[in-house]
């Protein structure tokens, strides 16, 4: 029994070793983009790059970050694709990337790419409220348009937002409020909003998932999460807060030490090509490449025409550095 088993292991090991030696034309891509998007992009990529087999591993931002750090000694991916810039700015991830100046990079404004070309972000997402319309009617409140609207006592215990300590989404909301309103008033608003908060969730999408099934009236979450809910037919309205809409950029980069730099680079070039942008315009709320058509989802969800005016100018480098302090102050402020 044992012997047979050992043989089995050995057999499996040899088999795997053969798989492990990447044959040319195959690249492994780690991504935190949404499942549906990934499928659509890869279909377009297959047409544009028929000779490259793209193997994508899709995990949520947090899980993928943990996986990348754990794999740091022997990275498995060739390309990091659609991953939150705030997390890339952490050297544990950023140091695993190799500078590469992708073709078409000059289209992007400076704030959407790294100075040393380690990453560039053609797309992004925004913080957004998911408002459950039937429940809003029930509690007799006005449609909230900005964070301060949520101070209405009618919302007491009716709002859910992610915990900034567990979720990047929660953090980007807190950071946007603090950067927009300044330290003192920002913390005051966060403290006042606490009365309306029923709970702080660990995941960034859960607040919207709760609002869509009517557990709570407002879920502070992300634009794409809201758009998914709306397209599935839930009675939701998406609201981009007019005052402090935090947003996150989804960046791409070349993993240092890749076995297949040629194909990895061609894939990165593709993410800035017309073939890719035509799909961005179908799915993404934030596209940083100029003159890309707006997505129909964005229309359905009533996204404002000119995003630049709504989006709060985020300072990612600053917010990344201050992260630890902000999270611990947030805990003390809300006391939960």
């Amino acid at each position, binding site marked *: *029994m044992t012997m047979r088993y050992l043989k089995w*292991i050995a057999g*499996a*090991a*040899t088999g*795997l*070793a053969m*798989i492990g030696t990447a044959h040319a034309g195959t690249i*492994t*891509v780690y991504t935190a983009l*949404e*499942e*549906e998007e*990934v*499928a659509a992009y890869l279909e377009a990529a297959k047409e544009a790059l028929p000779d490259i087999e793209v*193997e994508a*591993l*899709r995990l*949520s931002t*947090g*899980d993928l*970050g*943990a*996986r990348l*750090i*754990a*794999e740091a*000694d*022997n990275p*498995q991916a060739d390309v990091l694709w659609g991953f939150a810039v705030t*997390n890339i700015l952490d050297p*544990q*991830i950023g140091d695993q990337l190799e500078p590469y100046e992708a073709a078409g990079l000059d289209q992007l404004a400076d704030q959407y790419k790294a100075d040393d070309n380690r990453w560039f972000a053609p797309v992004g997402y925004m913080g957004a409220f998911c408002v459950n319309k039937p429940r809003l009617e029930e509690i007799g409140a006005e449609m909230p348009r900005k964070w301060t609207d949520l101070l209405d006592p009618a919302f007491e215990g009716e709002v859910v937002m992610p*915990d900034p*300590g*567990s*979720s990047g989404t929660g953090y980007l909301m807190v950071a946007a409020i603090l950067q927009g309103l300044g330290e003192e008033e920002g913390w005051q608003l966060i403290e006042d909003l606490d009365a309306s908060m*029923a*709970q*702080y969730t*660990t*995941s960034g*999408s*859960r607040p*919207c*998932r709760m609002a*869509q*099934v*009517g*557990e*709570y009236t407002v879920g502070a979450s992300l634009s794409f*999460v809201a758009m*998914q809910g709306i397209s*599935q*037919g*839930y009675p939701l309205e998406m609201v981009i807060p007019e005052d402090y809409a935090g947003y996150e950029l989804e960046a791409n980069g070349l993993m240092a030490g890749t076995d297949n730099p040629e194909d990895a680079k061609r894939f990165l070039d593709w993410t800035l090509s017309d073939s890719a942008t035509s799909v961005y315009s179908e799915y993404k709320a934030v596209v940083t490449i100029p003159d890309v058509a707006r997505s129909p989802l964005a229309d359905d969800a009533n996204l404002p025409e000119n995003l630049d005016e709504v989006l709060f100018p985020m300072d990612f480098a600053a917010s990344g550095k201050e*992260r630890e302090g902000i999270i611990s102050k947030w*805990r*003390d402020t809300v006391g*939960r």
Partner: protein
Amino acid sequence: MKPVTQPRQPQLPQPGEASSQRGSARQARLLHLVSFFVPMLGLALFFLYPLALVVHRSFLQDDASLGLGNYASVLAMSHIPGVVGNSLVMSSITTVVCILLGFAIAYMLQRTTIIGRSIIMLALLLPLLAPSLVQALGLLFLFGRNGLVNQATGWDMQIYGLWGLVIANSMYALPQAVMIIQASLRHSDVRYYDAAMVMGASNWRRFVDITLPNAKFGLLSAAFVVFTVTITDFGNAAVIGGDYRVLATEIYSQVVGQMNFNMGAVIGIFLLIPTGVAFYIEKVASQRQFGGGSESAIPVPRNFLPARDIPLGIVSHFTGFFLIAVVVTVVYASFVQLWPYRMTLTLDNYNITTQGGYTPLWTSLLVSTQAAVIGVVLLFALVLAQRGLPRAAAKAVYLLAIVPVGVPGLVLGLSYVLSFNVGGTIMGALYGSALLIAFCNFYHYHSQGFLTMVAGIRTVPKSLEESVTCLGGSPLQGLRDAILPIMLPTLVAVFFFLFMRSMVTLSAVIFLITPSLSVGAVSVLRLDQAGFTTQAAAFSVCIMLLVLFAMGAMKLTLMWLESRGRYSVAEAKAA
């Protein structure tokens, strides 16, 4: 930590010819060596080594030096005392609930003639074979603010928080408690009860003086398992816990939320503290069990005492009803178009569009079968071997075998990445394979399997084994004819436990999947994350059906094997 003590050679009786005796002794020694070293090697490679890397991480400070800095930082966080308190309160309440209910149900299943025992047994399987994520969804569909109960009654019941968490975690831990307690209630000897009755002991006295002391090991082990699995579980805390923050959420927030690996490792190490109780459990385990287990034991017959069994029946059936209601809600939701707004029934949810469609289900089946087979063989070998070990060595084995339950899935999964993502070695070759996921799942549930096996094998008298070898049988025959038949129900229980958990566990596996290798539980998570709640329910229903079907098939095979086995045992006895 790894014991270096050589196993003691079992003392064998001396009849028969010298040559066969020598051969038999050599065989016994070999058997003992193999059954000790192979499982220990497994533990060292697939548990101790990864754990050592986590311990190392917990000491690794920001400037790459080793020290206690991370421990100091964690202890200095102002919210940590509250979180520790929350965890202790939640796990203690859950433990009390699960032990009371678990003993009642195990007793009901093993000793009474209360009707509907098979329904309760089925109900207890349900929480094991549904992903905990989906179970939590089922609870929310029923008891959430906009759940069926609130809708029907007009109440505004809140499930989020401590009590919701206690309910969800009790559902998760109860079947494990029952499995262990039940193993300790099997094979008691009715003659003790008869003797006590002759001496005028009341039913209650006999329960207190015979049943309870014999179940002590089972109860204690079950309490230990319930406490540890609930204090390390993250899934329910995330969905049902609301603002009730526990240590498991804290690990998640450090590691996944803030990418502070080393701080997460520190909290992971803190969570190992409760496993120190293992020392005490081992002490109880080494005490001789008196109520069961002589070779001529006559099983305690089932009976019906109205004063005892009517309340017992009500409690068991209410619990069973609750467990079934949650799963039925999930099944119902899987056919609903858009819960809770368009309740029309549809089959659309079963058209799975997520990555790989239904393929991950088959990977799960493969992984789970591997985990269950490897697990049962290694655990059985280990419990056999530890019977013959000197006290000190047995103690070390116990501790080592029990510690895995204290490691949260998230920590285990990441420790596997750290251990096996190394190029060019045989260990590295395992990375990205289904087999590694199987090992991870087995060691994740190692402790529960081990404690169940120990509870079971304690009821097998050593003299039974010896009498077979006395009659000229080899040690292997002793194993086959004496131990195996008695242990079979426990082995089967452990096999199915590992199989079922492996089909649905998620927290560790999420870090071991690759672009081309994913499992069913991950698909459920992906569907839920993308907001396809009813599709997630549908996929879970498929998992549950597949598990039930696979278990049915395995049970039939087993019955067939057993019928053949019994024949050969009878034949051997006749000879």
